[in-house]
Each structure stands twice: as structure tokens, then as C-alpha cells.
């Protein structure tokens, strides 16, 4: 079962402080609706309730944060680059969230 981000964030808040939990929540929000096109339209990620089938399933790929950040920043194949439409902080938030939610780090 996917861990709901709220519970995950709560757990992390204890471990690493509230700021990080907020970042994860923001990462999830960006993943679901904060980019154009939204990550969730193309990718599957159970934690985010995303069932996109255009790009790889992140639950299967289990990327770490650095890998996600590189892909979001520069694009992969047909995946567009987001470095001009997202800030580095936003990319970092998405990367941290996806890595955590997909189990990649």
C-alpha cells in the first residue's frame, strides 16, 4: 500500500523537522498539479494517486532525487525540460518527493 504523503510527512517531521515535511507536501502538490503538463498526467506514482502511462512508472523506476532532478531540469527523450518554468527549489521539492514516494531514496 502506498504511504499517504501526510503520514509520510508527519513521520519525517519528527525526524527531520517541519520544513522538510512542508517541502515534501509542496513536492507532491507540484507533481499532481503544479507543472505544465503535470507530472501525474504522464507518470504513475501510487502515493500521488497518479496513473499516467505515457512515461515510465516511477514506482517501478524508483529513481533517487538526483536522477529525478536531472530529468525534470533537462528532459528525457520526449519528456520536456522544466528548467525554464520551475525554480531550482521547486525542482528540488519534486525530486525529494518523488524519490521518497517511489522508494528510491
Amino acid at each position, binding site marked *: 500500500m502506498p504511504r499517504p504523503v501526510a503520514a509520510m510527512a508527519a513521520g519525517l517531521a519528527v525526524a527531520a523537522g517541519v520544513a522538510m515535511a512542508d517541502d515534501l507536501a509542496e513536492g507532491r502538490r507540484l507533481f499532481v498539479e503544479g507543472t505544465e*503538463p503535470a507530472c501525474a498526467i*504522464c507518470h504513475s506514482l501510487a502515493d500521488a494517486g497518479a496513473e499516467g502511462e505515457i512515461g515510465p512508472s516511477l514506482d517501478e523506476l524508483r529513481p*533517487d532525487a*538526483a*536522477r529525478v532532478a*536531472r530529468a525534470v531540469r*533537462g528532459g528525457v527523450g*520526449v519528456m520536456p525540460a522544466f528548467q525554464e518554468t520551475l525554480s531550482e527549489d521547486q525542482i528540488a521539492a519534486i525530486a525529494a518527493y518523488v524519490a521518497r514516494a517511489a522508494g528510491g531514496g
Partner: protein
Amino acid sequence: MMEPRFSRRGFLVGAGGATALGAGGVAFDGAHAPAAAQEGGLPDYAAWKDADALIIHSRNTMETKRGAVGSGGLTASDRLFIRNNLPSPDASITADPDAWEIAIEGVARPGTMTLGQLKRLGVTSEASVLQCSGNGRGFFTHGASGSQWLTGAAGCVIWTGVPVAAIVEAMGGPAEGATLMTSTGGETLPDGVDPASIMVERSVPIAAHAHAMIAFEMNGAPLPLTHGGPARVVIPGYYGVNNVKYVKRLAFGTQESGAKIQTSGYRVRPVGEGGAASQPSMWDMTVKSWVTHPLTDPGSGRVQIHGVAFAGPERASGVAVSLDGGQSWEQARFYGPDLGRFAWRSFVMEADLAPGVYAVASRATAEGGSVQPEDFPPNERGYGHNGWRAHAVELTVA
């Protein structure tokens, strides 16, 4: 998939039992190893493929193991790599190939034709290398995103199809001043997405249309959905991405496609830079070769060292092989049928190997004189690697 590891000599042991010489560094790290690669096996749309011959990077990306491309000049269909930028359309589109419709635009008399109608206009057949732009990405050391292809995102197959030139001629010729040919794929895009952001649409210089075809057969069988059936564009000498699958539109004009895959994707630029239309596009391929056998200890004595060589739009004219990491070279010879300038050639060099460690490299030359380089500069997306040093194999003979 074998875990990457290093010998004391600093050589990298890569996938499929082959030993590859890194360019003095780390070709893989944990972040780039194809995670959970083979756990799922073959997806339904590719269930007929030979899983034992493939490294399955993901559902839409599989490469041929280095030793599995065959030694006879052609790659078996069930071993050919797969790189789908988008999921395949429903298999029903190949139920009646002749009913598939393709819009022809930017010609004197534009219109939509079925594949059945197009087949009346002409037929051609060509052996050519199909190679992903990122083939060899796994040999770069800068951590480029994307599948960490080694040698296997390439194969040589025979395509049969309708010559694009015949189609254009039948429709009155290209629009005046047209400089580009643009192909649009028939993938289904999800709702809520600007099509330009993810659609597969590629523009190439119009000169490429002289050899291009709308292919409907591969290796003598109807083109399977897995490889773009019922009909795909094939542009011999050009990287795979330009050979648009399930093609539904072919247009001639002066404007490059506005799809991201054209404007910023598949552009070669320095590491760290974003993609832009001002940068070189992944169009024609470059001179390249690699050894395919032996990849593991063959035992001492007489050995046949073979591999494949090609030069994109040119004919490969020769290959030299080194057993000592490039300190000395000996000319290999081509064998088997010459399938034309767009095909790869099989090469062989006979060697008497005493026990020891060999760094086996191959270096191809193109008819026009260009030579496969020793190294290829890192670039942001990890495209176009044809450096012979990184493609060399370490061979330990007991």
C-alpha cells in the same frame, strides 16, 4: 542484469557479460543502473521478443545484448532493440494495415491516402542501421539522464516500403521552397496536455526524403506494432528518433516542428545547458563500430574477433582492430554480403591469443574519410557516443 563492478585495472564490467573499458571513470552509478530492470519481463506489446537476447531497461526501452546482434549482417527481429518515446497505440491498428491513413501535406495536391493506395505508387527495399540517438550513453561518465544504453540500441534490418519520393511525385511535388520533411506519429496523447509538449513529430532536411520510405515490412514480415506498424517512416542513415512510428502525417514545408522533441529534445549541447533549436539536431549518424565477439574468455589459440561497422549515410569502408587498447592496429576484413551503404558490415580479424589480458578495440573508417574517434565529448543528454576507447572490451584469456 549484472551489477556494475570494477577490476583492479579500473575497467568496468557492464551488462550482458561484456567487459567495457570506461573512459577512465565511472560509467554507471547506482542512480543510473536500470532499476528493477528485468523484474517485470516483457510487456504485452513486445511479448514476442527474445527476452534472453535483451537487456530490459524499462517497459519502453530494451536493448540487444552486445553478443546477440548476430554475425550475419542482419539483426533478427525478435532481438532488435525497442525505444518507444510514448506507449504504443492499441494493437488493433495493425489488424488491417492497408486501411491505415496517412495525411500528405505541403505538396501540390495534398490529401489523405491509405497505405493500400500508397502501395500502388511504388516499392523499395533497403537494409539500414536503426540506432537510438542515445546508444552508448552508458559509456559517458557525466550522469546523463535516460536509458543507459551500451551498444545494443542499434540493429541492422531490411525495410520494405513505399518510396517517399514516389509519393511526393504522385502528389505534384513538394511545395515551393520546402526545406524540411516533417513526420507525425500516431500515438494517442492523454487529455489535458498541450500536444506539442510530448508528441512525437520530427523534421529533417528535405534532402533526406530521396532515400526515405513509408515502411510496411521489416525483415520480410509485416511491420509489427512493436516497431511502428502498420507503417513508419524510415530514413536510412538517420538516428532512430527521425524514423517516426505509426506515421499518420507527412508534411513538407519551411518550418521545423514545434514539438518539444524537435525544438529542445534531441539537441546536442554542452553538459549543463538546456536544449534549444539553435543546437545541432540528432539527424544523420556518424561512423561507428564495436566488437561483438568474443566477450568472455575464448581460451588461448586461434580466435575469430568479429563485430559490426557502419557510417550513417555513408558506406563504411574499413575497420582496424587493436588488441592492446589502441597502441597498435591491424586491418580487419569485411565478410558476408554487402547490403548497401546504409547497412552495417560484419568484420572479422583472426588472432592467435596467448594467455593474458587484452583490450580489444575497433575503429571504423567511412568512405568519405572520416574515422571513428578515440573519445567523444560528453554532452548534456548523452547522445552520439562513437568513441572507440569506451566501446573496447577487456578480454582475459586464461
